[in-house]
């Protein structure tokens, strides 16, 4: 079979049979209705948008409170060690004072 000739014939067939340009009845109304639907925001979408907007401030609050908490605990740990040291050494201090 002559493949090139067959190709030419089939391409010519496709050119001769151009597809229809018929539009379904009231198609433009359907598009406008879809656009109107798309314009109305969905409640869940609004809720999720609000959650996303709140996410960054919440994250900042968590980070700051975490930092504050770590810093505060560190200071308290320093105080505690000082207190322990004072308690342990107080006996020794008294003994040393009585010796001198």
């Amino acid at each position, binding site marked *: *079979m*002559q*493949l090139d*000739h*067959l*190709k030419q*014939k*089939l*391409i*010519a*067939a*496709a*050119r*001769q*049979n*151009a*597809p*229809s*340009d*018929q*539009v*379904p009845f009231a*198609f*433009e*109304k*359907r*598009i*406008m209705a*879809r*656009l*109107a639907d*798309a*314009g109305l925001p969905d409640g869940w979408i609004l809720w999720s948008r609000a959650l996303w907007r709140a996410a960054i401030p919440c994250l900042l609050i968590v980070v700051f409170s975490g930092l504050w908490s770590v810093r505060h605990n560190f200071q308290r740990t320093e105080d505690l060690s000082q207190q322990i040291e004072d308690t342990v050494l107080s006996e020794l201090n008294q003994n040393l004072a009585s010796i001198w």
Partner: protein
Amino acid sequence: MERSDQEHISAVLQGDTPSFEPLVAKYSPRVFATARRYARKESEVEDIVQEIWMKAFNKLASFRGDAPFEHWLMRLAVRTCYDFLRGHQRNREATFTELSEPESDWLERFAADPGKAPEDEDAARLLVQRLMDQLPPAARLVIQLLEIEEKSVKEIAALTGWSIPLVKVRAFRARAEMKKCLARLARDKYL
């Protein structure tokens, strides 16, 4: 007095959505004809056209007005049809063994005497569709635009957004792919 496309577009961009309707009414025939070249089922065609119009509405602000609105819309239409082809790459491995009787008749008449198989018959149209369905999306798009619609490489580049060298490479590959499909058609039918 009837408003121009540009006036409708400006109105839509200023928030007057109903001004979009005359554009849809005016250009839908052309958009439907384009979509029917790439999808067979009418439900798929309607889905594609709806998607094209939704994209057109959402991207209307990117229309600069340098070229006619129709050109901008057809670029959008061709790209949406290409996306559809890429998303629906089914039945490409089907063989030509299950040809309908009129298609087989047409091929037999062509094999006996090419002059006895006129191209204006329905069977020839069905065979072309079958052949196009077997091509990969890019090859199908190129064959459709270059061979069937007889567009230039430059026009295809503008429609698809591909570079001119890429269109040429894809055209070369598409022709080779089509030849392979035709060879398979001949083999399946006559061996």
